[in-house]
């Protein structure tokens, strides 16, 4: 760093620089959108021509949206007390090609990361489920790679698993949908039963793709709740983690559509990086400028920070959309706010293991295994609070591991 210049830079140029900077700010003010009266289907402010930029449609496919919303009302097939085994509108596919009764299987799992509480909780559940099968002798070796949210690393991880030739089945929890398509396809070609869960992949080569109903439904649960519990014309603030993450974009796309038709005023949609401090700061600033009647979040992390902003500003609590994270559920209970906790079923982490079991057993599995996705409402709040009374605040209520051997200790002291 020995290249810094000397203090002899012409003042004029400095001036120009400063002006440039300020005018740049100014420029941003002019083309800044006024979300409040912007229909949802209008392209994003900074967007220009071209498919790439036309983001609002990129993440919104009406057919999928409608199917997901409909699926919420479908009663899933399978045991009601084991939601992780339930399936909605399954198209069962024959798996006899992978049938192999022999015990001592090696199960490989290419994990995206354990970088947030939801994934940590789920991964614990998954490991506990594996233990069960290990005790049964079905699985001897459970190999996990962690890509630390780096697509490229996950691609290498999967390649390594395939190349090792030792995996009897491969579970993938993709970092991003689009980017993993090629490598997953190559894994399929290698003749492995591939099980994808959580985020999808743009191919149908895998044995099964396991996921809860989906992002549209998640976003809609919250948005509809706000619509139904707020007077038309009330103000709503949307807090989002980060742009470009498909599942999150779907949640927002659905909410945006519903808001547009609801007569609610969306004050803005802000990216918070899931950081509590940022969330609290942004909410505080909106409160300085006026009332906020409702908060919509694309994920529960930091929902407590958002509520605290209201407390600290001495404003009445908003109608709140959180998630089934214990910290939020507890806050909800304490403050007796009007709220809903949409659920991105955490118990889905058990399903891939059980799917592998089925596949090896030659049983049919649905090509797309849609798990139920029931939000937590005021009615069942108490039940979940009691069930998870001892669980840490960043635990997820619908983790579905209650009857697994390790319960409750492994989830309590993680």
């Amino acid at each position, binding site marked *: 760093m020995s290249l*810094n210049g000397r203090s002899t830079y012409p003042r004029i140029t400095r001036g120009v620089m400063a002006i440039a900077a300020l005018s740049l700010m100014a420029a941003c003010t002019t083309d800044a959108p006024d979300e409040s009266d912007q229909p949802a289907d209008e392209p994003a402010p900074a967007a220009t021509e071209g498919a790439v930029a036309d983001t609002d449609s990129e993440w919104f496919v009406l057919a999928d949206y409608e199917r997901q919303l409909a699926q919420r009302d479908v009663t899933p097939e399978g045991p009601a007390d084991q939601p992780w085994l339930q399936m909605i509108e399954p198209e069962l596919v024959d798996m006899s090609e992978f049938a192999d009764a022999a015990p001592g299987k090696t199960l490989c799992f290419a994990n995206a990361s354990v970088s947030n509480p939801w994934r940590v909780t789920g991964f614990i559940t998954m490991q506990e489920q594996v233990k069960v099968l290990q005790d049964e002798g079905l699985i001897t070796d459970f190999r996990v790679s962690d890509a630390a949210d780096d697509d490229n690393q996950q691609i290498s991880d999967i390649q390594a698993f395939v190349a090792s030739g030792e995996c009897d089945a491969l579970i993938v929890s993709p970092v991003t949908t689009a980017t993993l398509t090629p490598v997953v396809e190559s894994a399929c070609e290698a003749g492995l039963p591939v099980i994808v869960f959580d985020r999808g992949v743009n191919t149908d080569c895998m044995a099964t793709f396991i996921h809860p109903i989906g992002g549209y439904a998640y976003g809609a649960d919250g948005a509809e709740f706000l619509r139904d519990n707020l007077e038309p014309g009330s103000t709503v603030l949307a807090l989002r983690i980060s742009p470009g993450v498909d599942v999150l974009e779907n949640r927002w796309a659905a909410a945006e559509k519903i808001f547009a038709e609801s007569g609610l005023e969306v004050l803005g949609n802000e990216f918070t990086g899931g950081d509590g401090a940022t969330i609290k700061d942004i909410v505080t600033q909106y409160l300085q400028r006026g009332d906020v009647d409702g908060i919509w979040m694309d994920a529960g992390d930091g929902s407590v920070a958002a509520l605290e902003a209201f407390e600290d500003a001495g404003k009445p609590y908003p109608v709140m959309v959180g998630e089934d994270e214990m910290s939020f559920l507890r806050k909800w209970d304490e403050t007796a706010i009007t709220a809903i906790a949409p659920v991105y079923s955490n118990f889905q982490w058990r399903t891939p293991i059980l799917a592998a079991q089925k596949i090896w057993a030659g049983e049919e599995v649905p090509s797309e295994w849609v798990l139920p996705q029931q939000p937590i409402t005021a009615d069942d709040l108490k039940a979940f609070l009691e069930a998870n009374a001892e669980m840490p605040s960043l635990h997820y209520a619908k983790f579905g591991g209650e009857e697994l051997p390790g319960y409750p200790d492994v989830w309590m002291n993680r």
Partner: protein
Amino acid sequence: MTRPVRRLGALHPLTPGGHWAAYLILVLIFVAVFWLNPSFAEPASLMAFVKKAAPLVVLAVGQYFVIVNGEFDLSVGSLVGAQVVIAAKMLNGEESRTWPVLAFMIVFGLLIGLVNGLVTTVLRVPSFITTIGMMFVLYGAIRLWTGGAPTGALSVAFRQVGRGGFASPVGQFQIPWALVVVVVVAVLAVSLMRRPFGRTLVATGDNPRAAEFSGVHHAWVTTRAFLLSGFLATVAAVLIGGYAGVTAQVGAGLEFTAITAVVLGGVVLGGGRGTVPAAIAGALTLEALFTLFNQLSVPSTLRPTVQGAIIIAAVAFAALPRRHRSRPVSGAVAPEGREPLPAAG
């Protein structure tokens, strides 16, 4: 008497301290914010702003000590994160543990600072590398310990500092404890810089050789700078944890924000120039900038662009002097030994 200084000042408007560029931008931004949203001028709003800005201000002061000494501390971001997570896990919501845990955090922060300092001074590892290494270590170690995402919860008492406050004697608003902390830190930092240690710190950053030839204990002075940085990172962690509680992301990228803030205040990378108030002004400028973005409802996604442009513009504007550690200007290009306006550095 001081006219000649003014004349030089006119030649180099921003070099003496370089920092009133920062004050200028700060004022401009605040004016803009007030103008766009008069309600922001209300005490309550300002106090809210202070609460939000407090952690970065404290962090910037800590970074200042290191930078003015000619070093870097890139580990503060992950240190803040680590501290909050440690607090949450050790407290697990129990009030009774608050003080012991605070004590432990301070010790831990100082320890990290000590390691950074000793590795840099004794092992002669450039602090840039030392602290990148420490960043990796802390990042990994803390997640290794918690299994990836933070667990536990902070106690109410712990959160008071960052979140709570007391009723203002005048007017209907609350004065946040964070403000008290910031003021105390600022006052202590300023007075520390007026003390012998402060002057040796800057002199060492300016010209290590001359400092050592004047009896300065270089290694120890630098190590103390890192100790201060580690301690203030801990304070920042207490503030930020108190402000918003535990989230997985806490602390991420703060090191760059802090360095940016300090540099925005006209403190020179490479050491020897800059003041505590300037560093604080830099931090406030940055936070005010984020507020302004919000007032202008600049699309979230576009904000980094504006931020980057403004940082470059501001620094180019302040026209940083050459980094001191670079090889001395060859005698062959300096006139007969007495030049009143030398090549800076």
